[in-house]
């Protein structure tokens, strides 16, 4: 029993954080808002050079063969800087899905796309019906789209897309018009369902980890703002009301981290408890992100309501993640199914046996 990350994992997280905090600034994010795609090839190259696009790609495919658990601290840091790039989606959702394809056609797809992803040459995005829209379809080299109990792989010439602007200017959501065809079919029936369920879990896990980072960032920004901002002759951060608004966020955040790490472990180890662990993680992490948005906004006063103050970059992402990769009620439902089942493994001593 060892519920801690290794030195290496923590050191890598640190180096990635250092890079991201320096490279992905509020200024660079706002600059991307003004571009057509809202995405930066240069940034993607840098992420590739850091080995982040290759992390979850199997070694046989030119990757580092790491798991969702290895990647989870990185996803957290991507949230901390509100990374305007689909790294978490590709590393946690697309790559493992491709990697689980079987049969000759499956092998072919893997061979074609996984090394390309690892080398940063290709972006593959997954569109599941539960998500309604498809992220980053405009810069995707391949889309994996769900239709009922089947999955199809489409290249850009095989679909057209319409942008649906999100309140988060960094978020690029598209409605896709496309046709199913046997040529594009990559999985169906039980096998497809299995891939879809796995993708939902990993997508929700990624968003949960990002939500932890977003919450921490909103806390950090607000702690420094309230230390500088003076009213009534002292920093507003010295007022008990402001302190307690922030402390309440800190408490929730502290108790949302370990559920996310447990879920990452469960996904990586394919534990039976993965579904309930992921839903717990998603609910806890997005809930603290909502509270962080609400309380840090309040501590910023009118400043927090402006376009120019950077809080909005993180607050709006926190909002939209509340219903991304499974709405709140869907995750609640998965938790109740587990908790209220006959002979449910709950109570003292059950945490690590399920």
């Amino acid at each position, binding site marked *: 029993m060892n519920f801690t990350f290794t030195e290496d994992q923590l050191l890598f997280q640190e180096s990635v954080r250092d890079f991201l905090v320096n490279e992905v600034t509020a200024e660079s994010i706002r600059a991307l808002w003004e571009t057509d795609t809202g995405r930066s090839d240069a940034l993607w190259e840098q992420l590739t050079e850091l080995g982040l696009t290759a992390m979850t790609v199997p070694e046989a495919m030119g990757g580092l063969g790491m798991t969702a658990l290895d990647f989870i601290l990185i996803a957290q840091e991507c949230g901390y800087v509100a990374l305007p790039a689909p790294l978490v989606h590709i590393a946690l959702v697309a790559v493992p899905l491709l990697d689980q394809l079987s049969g000759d056609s499956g092998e072919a797809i893997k061979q074609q796309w996984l090394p390309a992803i690892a080398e940063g040459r290709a972006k593959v995005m997954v569109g599941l019906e*539960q*998500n*309604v*829209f498809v992220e980053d379809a405009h810069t995707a080299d391949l889309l994996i789209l769900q239709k009922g109990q089947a999955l199809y792989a489409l290249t850009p010439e095989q679909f057209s897309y*319409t*942008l*649906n*602007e*999100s*309140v*988060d200017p960094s*978020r690029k*959501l598209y*409605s896709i018009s496309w046709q199913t065809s046997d040529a594009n079919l990559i999985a169906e029936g039980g096998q497809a369902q299995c891939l879809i369920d796995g993708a939902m879990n990993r997508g929700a896990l990624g968003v949960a980890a990002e939500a932890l980072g977003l919450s921490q960032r909103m806390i950090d920004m607000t702690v420094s703002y309230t230390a500088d901002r*003076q*009213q*009534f002759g002292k920093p*507003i951060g010295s*007022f008990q*009301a*402001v302190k307690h608004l922030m402390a309440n966020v800190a408490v929730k955040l502290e108790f949302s981290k370990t559920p996310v790490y447990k879920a990452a472990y469960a996904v990586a180890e394919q534990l039976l408890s993965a579904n309930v662990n992921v839903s717990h993680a998603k609910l806890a992490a997005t809930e603290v992100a909502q509270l962080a948005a609400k309380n840090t*906004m*309040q501590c910023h*006063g*009118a400043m*927090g*309501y*402006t*376009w*120019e103050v950077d809080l*909005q970059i993180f607050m709006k992402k926190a*909002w*939209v993640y*509340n*219903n*991304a990769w499974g*709405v*709140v*009620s*869907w995750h*609640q*439902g998965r938790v109740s199914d587990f908790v209220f089942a006959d002979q449910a493994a709950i109570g003292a001593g059950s945490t690590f046996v399920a």
Partner: protein
Amino acid sequence: MDLNYTEQQVAFRAEVRQWLADNVPVEPLPSFDTAEGFQAHREWEAKLYEGHWGMITWPEEMGGRGADLLQWLIFEEEYYAAGAPLRVNQNGIFLLGPTMMEYGTEAQKQRFLTGMATGKDIWCQAWSEPNAGSDMAAIRAKAELSNDGQHYIINGQKTWSTRAVWADWAFGMFRTDPESERHRGLSFILVPLDLEGISVRPIPQLDGLPGFAEIFFDNVKVPVDCLLGEEDKGWSVAMATAGFERGLMLRSPARFQQTAKRLVELYKENQATADADPAVKNAVIKAYMDAEAYTLLTYQTACRLVQGGKIGPESSTNKIFWSELDRDMHATAMSILGARAELLAHAPAAENVGNWLDGWLFSQSGPIYAGTNEIQRNIIAERMLGMPR
């Protein structure tokens, strides 16, 4: 206690409803945080004035109807039920107007109230300064009497001035006694925004629109007859305004009753998905109950005032209640809308869900402006409950 409307009140309601049915634009006006939207709302104010609906509680000679507060509540109910445009001049008619009734000279009333009722003069507030937000007594912007005693020379900066970008006039507080500190030595002055030396810098808000602005004053010469109340006694005048702001007029219950109603409809349209989260149904009926509670308390207060009563410190509870109610209702709508909640109004797949997003964004400002809810809680604890400072 008699909770039946009088025949006159029923007749008045019918008259309002008819006029609104005939005049409210079918297409909602563009947001008044845009240039064209502001103009459209300005024209709507003029249209209201034509029907003598500009500010019905004012005397007829000032463009009103001498209506009482209960008629005002009825008017507001019909106004929101008809989906009529927001009042672009609310700072004037709801905040400055009542203050001027109390502190203005006859000349000022004639001059300014009519301008408000007609929609000719749109007003903005000039209270906050970069270092005087929650701590309003820290105001530093100066107004010095000119040697000839004819003008105030204003220098300094104001901020968070809602709708200042296109407004005609600003009212606010300036330090007329340079030696003074805190609440003392401030004066309540009315400033035409077209004067030389004034520059306005728009501040884009969460939705990107310039809903408020900074105002810079560089040796601006304001005629002395723009002083409201006594010189150096502006604080008490301002407190009266704050009273109205927190109190009866700033936010009509009707507004929240309509939001609650729309929330109920949204819930019914999406019941299958909404009921998946058991918390949503409770949140919806709570929205209804809280909007009702706000309405009931407002009616009680109005009846008390009509009978000669006064607004007390308990009015500080209003601001907290409606601002949290508004935010909670919109948060509930966001949950019901699920994955589509984040779409901007003009997104192809939005199908009007965007109105809820706009409302959600706007509701974020409720707990902050007009005195943050933390300040309000202090006021409630100290002035209403009598807890030690």
